[in-house]
């Protein structure tokens, strides 16, 4: 079994994919504007209503960062499926690059897009909360990268379903996304939830990702899940879905159009 990746092919494919991903500057700009709208309109209004959490605006802002990162990671998974649907995947599968290397490249595309698109929103949230420092920026990006890798690995693994039915895949991903966002600590702490919701949220990796980010930035720790538990869960998600993704892509993914 080969253990050394062919970096030339990965870098070539990565550059090609990134050129396509950033082809529309308008779309990247729109994602920043959307983030600002969400933060300054919804975030500022909702933080006036929430009185039980101190500095809820900041709590919401960090949650919004995780949510946006989750959306980008989901996009990377969907992009993989759309690639199969549009005939792009079969071409890539015919090129001299290993399936595992291809999976790693796809993850790298998602991570790079995530960093580029999230950097301005992160800086704005940190500046507004008076926590701006390059260490905090880098720490935030690190947490987001781990969460994004986990989500992308999950979404790409789920793409196996899309080769049987694109409709079923879309329904599962949409439902899963809705549940992952609602039953998590992205927008509200565990302490604000009833017992049932809290138990469900404790099985959700996004809860650990969001609370890990808040720990790193030093938000009120009484509201958060234990930091060692959070980091363990996030790393486990990241590593687990990486292996799952490599397994699925090597064993099951073929260059057929999804139906």
């Amino acid at each position, binding site marked *: 079994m080969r253990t050394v990746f062919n970096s*030339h*092919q990965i870098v*070539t*494919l990565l550059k*090609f994919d990134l*050129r*396509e991903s950033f*082809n*529309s500057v308008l779309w990247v700009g729109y994602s920043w504007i959307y983030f600002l709208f969400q933060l300054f309109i919804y975030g500022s209004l909702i933080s006036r209503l929430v009185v039980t959490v101190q500095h809820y605006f900041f709590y919401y802002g960090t949650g919004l960062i995780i949510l946006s990162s989750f959306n980008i990671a989901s996009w990377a998974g969907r992009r993989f499926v759309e*690639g199969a649907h*549009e*005939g*792009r995947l*079969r*071409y890539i*599968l*015919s*090129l*001299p*690059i*290993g399936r595992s290397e291809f999976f790693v490249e796809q993850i790298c595309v998602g991570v790079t897009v995530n960093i580029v698109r999230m950097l301005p929103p992160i800086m704005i949230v940190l500046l507004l909360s008076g926590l701006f420092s390059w260490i905090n920026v880098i720490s935030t990006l690190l947490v987001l990268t781990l969460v994004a890798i986990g989500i992308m690995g999950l979404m790409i693994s789920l793409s196996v379903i899309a080769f049987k039915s694109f409709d079923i895949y879309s329904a599962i991903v949409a439902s899963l996304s809705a549940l992952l966002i609602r039953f998590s600590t992205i927008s509200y702490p565990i302490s604000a939830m009833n017992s049932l919701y809290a138990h469900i949220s404790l099985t959700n990796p996004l809860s650990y990702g969001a609370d890990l980010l808040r720990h790193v930035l030093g938000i009120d720790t009484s509201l958060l899940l234990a930091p060692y538990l959070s980091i363990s869960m996030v790393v486990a998600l990241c590593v687990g879905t990486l292996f799952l993704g490599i397994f699925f892509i090597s064993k099951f993914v*073929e*260059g*057929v159009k999804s139906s």
Partner: protein
Amino acid sequence: MFDLEYAVKTIKLTKRYGSLLALDSLDLKVDQNMILVLLGPNGSGKSTFLHLISTVLKPSNGTAKVMGYDIVEQPLKVRQVTSIAFQDPRGFWRHKPKHILSFHASMYGINGAERSAIVERVMKDFDLWESRDKKFMDLSGGQAKRLEVAKLFVHKPQLALLDEPTAMVDLDGKRIMWDKIRELKESGCTVIVATNEVREAEYLADRISIFAKGKEIITESLVDLKDTIKGGDVVEMEFIPEASDSVIHALASIPGTVSINRISRSKLKISVSRSEDWLPLATNYVHNMGLKLLSIRVSEPSLDDVFMNIIRTRINN
């Protein structure tokens, strides 16, 4: 050890999609440095075969060796020596043709100034240079198809696979493409072309393989394929002053004669197998009988006739 006798050697290669058997236990050998054309009705398994040996699809059963590499055990090695031009060029909507070809070259290890020079030459060869800065989504169907085929000429793989390479291409473009495909073979590549166009097969093929219902029915050279039709060659003979019954009897006794029809008093239309063997014997008979011939016209069956005949007879059997 690698079996390098053949460019492709399949062993019970099978592909199933649920209950649909797309390719059924295919055993096919393709010699090196030749053009094999796959002919067959839609859904006969031609594209599936190309996708399997390019490792885009995984076989349900069996395997194949491509340039000595096993498609199941050594798929990456196979991809390093193989390249495929797909039937419908899709994807990469926002990329420009120049970038697509440069990327393709780079994936096969061609970089720097060499890559730029090759990409420019190939784009000019395929009449794409003027469109180099258009986005893929703005190309016409024919341009997109030419771009798809042009990828193979950037790095000239050991095994080039082309799925309906001239579909959507105008007549001039077809001629250019066919000549380029022949050049590919002359440069040392083995080429497999899947097509529905009989004329394309006649123009390109060293050997033709006819597929139907996921099976290879026959693989022969064009000449041998035509000879598979019993009585496929038609010989028209005009005698002076007339073709008597004794002549008809004499001709009927020649090996290879299938049927004789009288068109007029002096003219006969004779269906024979392998006219090249039959004619010397026939003229010898005529000479020995002291008869005179005004004209002889020989017509071979077209590949269309051969294809339809094989599909009708062998599939029905």
